[in-house]
C-alpha cells in the first residue's frame, strides 16, 4: 500500500503546489487547461525514458481529441469510439498486470488473513495489504503514465461523460477477477481477499482518475464511485455464492467460509429475497426428485438447517426455504426411518446432544406470529439484539426434522422399533449407549411418551441380573436330566437369555421355529429357575431371535462362526442327523417355510459347507470343494422372504392392542362390567399414549371374548371367571 500511495502522494504534492499557485484565481476552464498543459509537459519528460513512440502519438491524439471536443460541444461518434478502444486497451493492460499481481499478493496475504479474526461483522478497513515490492516497481511507471493520460480526461470534464464506460470496464474486470479466483472456492475466506485487492489495486487506480486531492470538487464523485464499486464487489459475491449455494450446502461444513462471505454480502446488498428464490429453485431442481435417496435428502436438509443458521441465526430464513423439502419428505415413506437412524446413529451423536440448554424450540414452534410472511423484510438478518423474541432461540435440528410430521407419535413408534432391534442385537447386556439416547430423547418428548422404551431397556437390564442369578444358581444335579453326561454337570448353561416383558415390545413376526432337543432341555431348566425367581411369571421362548456362535467340525477342517442366526444354526444342526436333506422335508421338520430354509441353506452353501446335489436336495460337504456362489438364488430367496414379511405384518394391529389388556382387565375387575364406550373413554383418560379407534378396540375385545377372557352381555363386558 505504502508504495502505491507514494506515487499518489507525489502527485498530490504537485497538485497542492499548483493549487497554491492558483488559489486566488477563480477556477475556470482555461486555467485548468493551463495547469493540465504543465502537467502534460512534465509527464512527457518523464515518459521519454520508458514510453515508445506509439503511445506518445496516441496520447497526443487523445489530447487533440479532447481539446477539440472541449471547444466544440458537438462530438463525432468516431472520436468517441476511438477513445473507448484506447481506454479499453489501457484497462486490459492494467488488468493483466493486476491479475498477475493478485495471485502473488494472495499468497502473501493468505497466512495473515486466516490468522485474523474473520468474523461476520468484518471491518474491511482492518485488512491493510502489503503490496509486493517488485509488483509496485513494475507498475509504478505504468501508473504514472496512466495518470498523465487520465489527467487529460479530467481536464476536459470527460470523466463525467465517460464515467459509465469506465465503471463498466471496472465492473467487468472485477467480475472477471472474482469469478476466476473464487468460483468454487468454498474453504477459505474469499471476500476479504477481494476487498484487499480492491484496496490496493482499484482505489489507487480511481485516485488517479479522479485525483480527489488535486480537485476537491471531485472528492464527492470519488467517494460515491468508490461506494458503488464496493457495492458491486459485494453484489458479485452475492451472485456467485447464491448460484453456488446448493453446492456450498452439499459441502458443508468445509464450505463454512463461503457462507460467511455470503452472509456479509447479503448484509451489504440486502438481496435476501433473490437468495431465497434462487435457493428454492436449486433445491427443487437438484434435490427433490425421484433419483435422490431419502437418506441423502435428509442429510442435505440437516446441512441446510446448519447453513441457514450461519446465514441467519433467527431461523426465519430457514423457514422460507425449508417448506418444499418438508412437504416432499412427508410423501416419502421411509423418511421417518431415515431420521430415526440418523438421530440414533453414533456418528451423529452431537445431534442428540446438541439440545440447547434452554428454550428447546424448533423454529416452527416459535411460530412466527410476530412475523407475518408478507411483512417479512431482509433486515431481519441484522436482528436487533434487543429483540427478545428472536434472541436466544437457536434452531434445534432434531425438532426441526421432526416437524416434518405433525405429531411426534410417528417418530416415537419408529424409535421404539429401532430400539427393539438394537436391544435384541446386543451381544451383551451393555446398555450405556441406549440409555443415554433414551435419556436425551426423554428431555425432548417427555417421559410419558417413551414409557414403552423405558420398559424395554429395563427388561434388558433386569435380564442381566436374572440371567446371572440363574447361571449361578443352576445346579444340574437338582434338575437331574437322564440324558446328561457326567461332564455336563459342571458346565454352565450354554446360553444367555434376554427376558422381554410381553406386550411392551413391538410385535414380533409369528414363527414356529423350535430349539433343537438339547438346547430345549437347557431352556426348560432356565424356565424352571426363572419361575422360582419370579413365581408369578412364565417364560415363553422365542427361538428365532438371537445369535448363535458355533464351531463346525468337519472331516478336513474346523470353522468357527459367530453371529449366526438361529435358523442357520438349526439347519446345520439337522445335517448332523443325516447328510442330505430335501428342501420340503427339512422345512416340514422345522415348521418354517421352504423359503426361509432355503435362505439358511444358501448361507451355508456360500460358506462352502453345503452343496445342492440335485434340485432342492442339499448335502453337507465334509471335504472342501470349490463351490460356485449362487448369488441368483440368494436374491430370489430374499424376495420371497420380503413377501412373507409383508403378509405377516397385517396381523400386528390387534397384537398392539394387547398392550392395553392389563389395563382393560384391571379396569373391569375394579369397576365392574363396562360398556365399550366407557372402556374406550377410560383408556383415553388413563393412557396418554392410547390412540386407537373404538372399532379397533371392539375387534380386540371380540378377540378376548374368543380367548375366553371376557364375557359380553347386553353391551356390558365382564371378566370371565
Amino acid at each position, binding site marked *: 500500500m505504502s508504495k502505491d500511495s507514494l506515487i499518489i502522494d507525489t502527485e498530490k504534492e504537485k497538485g497542492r503546489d499548483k493549487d497554491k499557485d492558483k488559489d486566488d484565481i477563480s477556477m475556470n476552464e482555461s486555467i485548468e487547461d493551463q495547469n493540465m498543459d504543465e502537467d502534460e509537459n512534465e509527464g512527457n519528460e518523464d515518459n521519454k525514458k520508458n514510453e515508445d513512440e506509439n503511445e506518445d502519438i496516441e496520447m497526443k491524439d487523445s489530447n487533440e481529441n479532447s481539446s477539440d471536443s472541449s471547444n466544440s460541444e458537438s462530438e463525432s461518434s468516431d472520436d468517441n469510439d476511438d477513445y473507448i478502444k484506447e481506454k479499453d486497451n489501457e484497462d486490459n493492460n492494467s488488468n493483466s498486470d493486476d491479475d498477475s499481481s493478485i495471485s502473488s499478493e494472495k499468497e502473501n496475504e493468505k497466512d495473515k488473513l486466516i490468522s485474523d479474526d474473520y468474523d461476520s461483522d468484518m471491518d474491511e478497513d482492518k485488512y491493510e495489504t502489503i503490496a509486493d515490492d517488485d509488483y509496485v516497481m513494475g507498475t509504478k511507471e505504468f501508473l504514472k503514465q496512466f495518470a498523465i493520460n487520465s489527467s487529460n480526461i479530467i481536464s476536459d470534464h470527460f470523466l463525467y461523460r465517460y464515467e459509465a464506460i469506465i465503471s463498466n470496464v471496472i465492473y467487468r474486470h472485477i467480475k472477471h477477477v472474482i469469478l476466476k479466483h473464487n468460483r468454487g472456492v468454498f474453504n477459505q475466506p474469499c471476500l476479504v481477499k477481494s476487498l484487499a485487492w480492491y484496496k490496493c489495486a482499484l482505489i489507487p487506480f480511481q485516485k488517479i482518475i479522479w485525483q480527489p486531492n488535486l480537485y476537491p470538487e471531485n472528492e464527492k464523485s470519488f467517494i460515491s464511485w468508490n461506494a458503488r464499486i464496493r457495492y458491486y464487489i459485494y453484489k458479485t459475491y452475492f451472485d456467485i455464492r447464491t448460484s453456488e449455494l446448493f453446492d456450498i450446502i452439499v459441502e458443508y461444513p468445509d464450505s463454512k467460509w463461503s457462507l460467511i462471505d455470503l452472509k456479509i454480502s447479503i448484509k451489504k446488498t440486502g438481496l435476501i429475497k433473490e437468495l431465497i428464490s434462487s435457493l428454492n429453485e436449486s433445491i427443487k431442481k437438484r434435490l427433490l426428485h425421484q433419483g435422490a435417496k431419502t437418506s441423502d435428502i435428509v442429510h442435505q436438509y440437516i446441512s441446510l438447517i446448519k447453513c441457514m443458521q450461519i446465514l441467519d441465526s433467527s431461523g426465519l430464513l430457514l423457514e422460507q426455504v425449508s417448506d418444499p423439502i418438508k412437504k416432499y419428505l412427508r410423501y416419502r415413506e421411509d423418511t421417518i426411518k431415515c431420521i430415526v437412524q440418523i438421530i440414533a446413529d453414533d456418528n451423529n451423536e452431537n445431534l442428540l446432544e446438541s439440545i440447547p440448554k434452554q428454550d428447546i424450540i424448533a423454529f416452527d414452534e416459535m411460530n412466527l406470529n410476530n412475523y407475518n410472511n408478507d411483512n417479512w423484510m431482509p433486515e431481519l438478518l441484522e436482528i436487533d439484539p434487543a429483540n427478545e423474541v428472536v434472541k436466544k432461540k437457536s434452531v434445534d435440528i432434531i425438532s426441526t426434522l421432526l416437524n416434518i410430521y405433525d405429531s411426534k407419535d410417528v417418530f416415537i413408534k419408529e424409535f421404539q422399533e429401532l430400539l427393539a432391534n438394537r436391544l435384541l442385537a446386543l451381544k451383551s447386556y451393555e446398555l450405556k449407549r441406549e440409555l443415554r439416547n433414551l435419556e436425551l430423547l426423554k428431555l425432548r418428548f417427555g*417421559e*410419558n411418551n417413551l*414409557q414403552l422404551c423405558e*420398559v424395554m431397556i429395563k427388561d434388558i437390564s433386569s435380564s442381566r441380573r436374572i440371567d446371572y442369578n440363574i447361571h449361578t444358581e443352576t445346579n444340574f444335579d437338582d434338575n437331574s436330566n437322564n440324558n446328561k453326561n457326567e461332564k455336563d454337570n459342571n458346565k454352565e448353561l450354554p446360553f444367555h437369555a434376554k427376558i422381554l*416383558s410381553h406386550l*411392551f415390545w413391538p410385535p414380533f413376526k409369528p414363527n414356529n421355529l423350535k430349539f433343537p432337543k438339547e438346547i430345549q432341555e437347557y431352556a426348560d431348566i432356565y424356565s424352571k429357575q426363572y419361575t422360582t425367581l419370579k413365581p*408369578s411369571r412364565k417364560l415363553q421362548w422365542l427361538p428365532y431371535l438371537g445369535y448363535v456362535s458355533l464351531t463346525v467340525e468337519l472331516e478336513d477342517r474346523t470353522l468357527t462362526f459367530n453371529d449366526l442366526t438361529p435358523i442357520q444354526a438349526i439347519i446345520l444342526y439337522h445335517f448332523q442327523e443325516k447328510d442330505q436333506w430335501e428342501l420340503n422335508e427339512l422345512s416340514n421338520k422345522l415348521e418354517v417355510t421352504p423359503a426361509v430354509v432355503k435362505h439358511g441353506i444358501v448361507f451355508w452353501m456360500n460358506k462352502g459347507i453345503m452343496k445342492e446335489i440335485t434340485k432342492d436336495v442339499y448335502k453337507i460337504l465334509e471335504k472342501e470343494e470349490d463351490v460356485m456362489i449362487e448369488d441368483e438364488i440368494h436374491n430370489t430367496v430374499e424376495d420371497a422372504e420380503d413377501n412373507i414379511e409383508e403378509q405377516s405384518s397385517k396381523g400386528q394391529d390387534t397384537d398392539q392392542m394387547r398392550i392395553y389388556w*392389563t*389395563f382393560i382387565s*384391571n*379396569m373391569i*375387575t*375394579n*369397576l365392574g362390567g363396562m360398556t365399550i364406550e366407557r372402556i374406550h*373413554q*377410560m383408556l383415553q*383418560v*388413563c*393412557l*396418554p399414549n392410547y390412540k386407537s379407534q373404538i372399532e379397533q378396540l371392539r375387534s380386540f375385545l371380540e378377540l378376548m371374548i374368543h380367548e375366553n377372557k371376557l364375557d359380553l352381555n347386553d353391551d356390558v363386558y365382564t371378566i370371565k371367571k
Partner: protein
Amino acid sequence: MNTTEGLNVTKRLQNELMQLMMAGIPGVSAFPESDNLLSWVGTIEGAPGTVYHGLSYKLSLKFPVNYPYTAPTIKFTTPCFHPNVDTEGNICLDILKDKWSAVYNVQTILLSLQSLLGEPNNDSPLNTYAAQMWNKPEEFKKQVIKIHNTGQF
C-alpha cells in the same frame, strides 16, 4: 384447584397406574373410577394362609390435590370384619396417617393393606369385638365370611 398442582397429581397418578399395571402383582389391583384420576377403586384378595383367603375386598381410594405430599383417604367399601377396620370401612394403618411419606404409592398401599388383613395390629383396634375374637380363628373366620357375604355387620 390450582391448575399446575392438578396437572402434577394427574401425571403422577397416570405414572402410578402404569407402574401398577406393569408390575402385575397377583391379588391386588386398582383403577381410576372415572375421568377424574383423583378417585380410584381398588381390589385386594385375601392372601393364602389367612382367614381372608378366597375373599376379595373392594376399596375406595381418594387422592388429595397435593398428593403425594398428603396421604390418600382409603376405605373398605366391602364390609370387612377386621380389628383395624371399623364398620364404616375406615382403616387404622400408620402409613396412611402419621407415617405417610411421599415415597409410598398405590402399589405399596395395596400391598400393605393386603398384609394388614393377615397381621392386624391389635394394640390400637377400631373394631374391639374383632380384636378380641382374633385369637379364636375358627369363630373369627365364620364372622369374616358372614359379613363379607351378607355385606352387613
